[in-house]
């Protein structure tokens, strides 16, 4: 019989000291970050080109220091756990004035970068010291963007790790996301250029990197004398035709979408404060299925068409169809959809607009996940209390709760396996699992079905 008196009521009352208020320090941290952005803005008007190192280090340094200090003060000083306080009331994360300013700013940045990139000339010059160091040549248009992107993933990735540090799944996944962006999408392509090899972003392949499936791409790589070029062909084809089906069969689409992909990486780091803004409405799901599959069909048909044209012409060399499709696809999908809308509207529409409505890679992976994979999100018996945290924090707009409260496993094409539903669930109801396909899709109709685990069910 347990002894009730064993618990000493006076235990460690000394630890109940007053809660420290760090709001002033937090404001200082935010101020430093804002100063960093101001320095960066000033740089584009000329000083950046004149004093590249000064502006590069002071702006990026202040942004990094300010945001990391803020992260530390906000998330690290209290015990680890779910830390989503004030998300629905903050002007930044709940469609307030800050969200709109940020959306307009981001969208404006993309529009200028796509159509009037010469306006950013001074930023490119500011980046030259770094560019010469890693790439061995001066900054071109998208190199500046790549550095910003990687920097954002790194800093906000650290924030995600601190914020979600009670979940080892989130820690390990975020480390992989940072690794993938830093090495596969930034350092390796830079070093390839440095060593005069063909530049390649090795975490992208057909169909997301649509050009990798076009004849022209093969032609240009085949012309290269280096072994590396042959390897890149092998790598890219291997990921498309072997890696994708096998890995997705075992782990679901998450192996790519929320572990490796740079778009997903940006969404899960820089975009993390906005993940809750994705629409959970049934109508959104309907629109999503039409759109994403239309994009996929467009890519498959146009790729096939270009190969048909190339085959009939008997050459891989540039043909009008290749040129025209590359251009129009690059503009519509690459720029407008994945850039301007996909990232620019993070604060308004949530983080995975592109992944959910437009990405052809996600469409293929989702198709395999839905029909041929061992992955599912298991729901735990009758423990769900329908609170709605899982649905709220699903970046893909899946109404997770509607499955969890019925005890039905979640097997959805769109799920990127970020694991946030399981992370925020207060009752331990959800779990991402790979396992035997038998019984993967279950549809209990009532609670009695769920909790009376009869063998004859």
């Amino acid at each position, binding site marked *: *019989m347990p002894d009730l008196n064993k618990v000493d009521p006076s235990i460690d009352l000394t630890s109940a000291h007053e809660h420290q208020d760090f709001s002033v320090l937090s404001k200082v941290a935010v101020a430093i970050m804002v100063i960093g952005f101001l320095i960066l803005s000033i740089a584009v008007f000329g000083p950046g080109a004149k004093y590249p190192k000064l502006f590069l280090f002071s702006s990026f340094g202040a942004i990094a220091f300010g945001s990391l200090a803020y992260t530390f003060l906000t998330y690290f000083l209290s015990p680890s756990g779910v830390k989503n306080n004030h998300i*629905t009331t903050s002007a930044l994360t709940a469609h307030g004035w800050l969200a709109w300013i940020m959306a307009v700013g981001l969208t404006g940045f993309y529009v200028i970068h796509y159509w009037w990139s010469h306006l950013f000339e001074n930023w490119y010059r500011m980046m030259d010291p770094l560019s010469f160091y890693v790439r061995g040549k001066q900054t071109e248009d998208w190199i500046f963007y790549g550095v910003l992107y990687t920097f954002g993933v790194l800093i906000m990735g650290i924030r995600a790790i601190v914020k979600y540090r009670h979940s080892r799944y989130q820690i390990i996944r975020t480390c992989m996301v940072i690794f993938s962006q830093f090495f596969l999408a930034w350092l390796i392509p830079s070093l390839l250029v440095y060593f005069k090899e063909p530049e390649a972003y090795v975490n992208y392949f057909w169909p997301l990197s649509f050009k990798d499936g076009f004849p022209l791409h093969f032609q240009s790589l085949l012309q290269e004398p280096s072994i590396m070029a042959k390897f890149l062909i092998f790598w890219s084809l291997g990921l498309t035709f072997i890696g994708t089906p096998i890995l997705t069969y075992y782990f679901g689409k998450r192996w790519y979408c929320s572990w490796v992909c740079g778009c997903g990486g940006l969404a899960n780091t820089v975009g993390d404060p906005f993940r809750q803004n994705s629409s959970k409405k049934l109508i959104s799901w309907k629109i999503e299925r039409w759109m994403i599959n239309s994009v996929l069909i467009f890519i498959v048909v146009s790729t096939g068409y270009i190969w048909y044209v190339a085959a009939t012409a008997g050459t891989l060399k540039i043909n009008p169809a290749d040129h025209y499709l590359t251009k129009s696809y690059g503009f519509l999908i690459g720029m407008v959809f994945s850039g301007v809308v996909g990232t620019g509207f993070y604060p308004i529409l949530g983080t995975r607009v592109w992944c959910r409505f437009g990405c052809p890679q996600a469409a293929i992976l989702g198709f395999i996940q839905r029909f041929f994979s061992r992955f599912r999100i298991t729901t735990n018996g009758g423990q769900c209390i329908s609170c709605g945290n899982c649905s709220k924090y699903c970046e893909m707009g899946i109404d997770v709760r509607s499955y969890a409260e019925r005890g039905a496993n979640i097997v959805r094409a769109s799920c990127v396996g970020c694991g946030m539903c399981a992370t925020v669930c207060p009752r331990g109801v959800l779990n*991402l699992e*790979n396992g035997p396909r038998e019984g993967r899709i279950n549809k209990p109709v009532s*609670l*009695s079905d769920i909790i009376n685990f009869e063998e004859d069910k």
Partner: protein
Amino acid sequence: MKHIVIIGNGIAGVTAARHLRKLGDDKITIISAETKYFFSRTALMYIYMGHMTLQDTQPYENWFWEKNRIDLIQDKVESVDYSEKKLLLASKTEVSYDSLILATGAKPNMFGWKGQDLDGAQGLYSYQNLQYIEERSHLIKRAVIVGGGLIGIELAEMFLSRNIKVTFLVREKSFWNKILPNEESAMINRHIFEHHIDLRLGAELEEIIGDDSGKVKAIKIKDGEVLDCEFVGLTAGVSPNIDFLKDSDLNLGRGIKIDQTFKTNMPDVYAIGDCAEFEVPLEGRLPIEQVWYTGKMHGETVAHVIQGEEKTYKPGTWFNSAKFLDIEYQTYGMVLGQLFDGQETFYWEAPNGKISVRINFSKETMAVEGFNFMGLRARHEVCVPWIENKITLKEVIENFGAANFDPEFYKKYEAVIVQQYNEEYPNDRVELKTKKGLFSNYIQKFKRFSLTERSS
């Protein structure tokens, strides 16, 4: 076509309505004074803390009700005329019914404390309660919470999110100690302190002191200490919300008296959820069940009963869950602060003092009878059949991996649990046979199957 009226749009009432719609074509009306649309009461705290909006806590989009032909009336029911079978609403309209389901929920307990009706003294159950707290929050420097249970600790967490100091009065010597055994209870005490909550164990409220305008300004504890505060959260449990049903022939106890098919003593009147009290409780269960899933099961069962099916209420093995600040709690089988006669317990706690596993078992047969998990998620589908099939402690320890429902990459404790078992039972050593994962789950299913084969 009957008209079935449901008073209360909580989980019990709404589940009844949904199942009635699945089963038949009757006219269904839900009346609620609280909100027009169903929301998840358990998520009230998250609305306050800014994790979700009210809309986020609504499991169904607004079109759902019209599509499923469930009429919603937002009004208060003043009285029920059982002989004429009609309701009188606060708006003076009348609604007649063929069948009536009372799912009116509960309200915070008030034990007649002096000053309990002052402005700033409140419980937390309804959306109105939450609005009341929200409106006053900017004035609160210190909140005192009276009653160390599940709602009390939620309220404490809510105030922490607004940087409001919290003093937490718990009458027991240790937090929720009637339900949580000493070790788990002590773990939560420590965790409450870790969050800088001024936890007062063994402390009872003497009175709430108001200022001249009738607002809370302080409280007095039984030992005489006076604490200044602007809010008092009264969270010493809830009781059925049945005041408007009094003074009629409806049989009331603490709640609305019902039989095993949720029928009251009035013809075609049923009661479910937090407001219902079983005349004869099921074995090993309380007469009033006030948890989320029992509300769901009541609703589901009553729908079948109203449609004339012979469905009885079969809640199965008891289970429950909660979250104390950052520590999750799951329980399967009845585990209380004290062991039942003839029981022994196996308890393991991680060195960080935030994760634990308790297995209660029969001294005589060694069959497991209950589990408590703190900070570790367990698989419902494995734990409950282990209890129902009277699996022995030894077998459970050997196969403990099958019950582990923690996310991927989480630290696994199966090996240290086996090690501790071997130290406590050196004559009956075991080895870990089943590791964590879905495969284990299937192996367990197979084992249970072969077990039933053997016994039959």
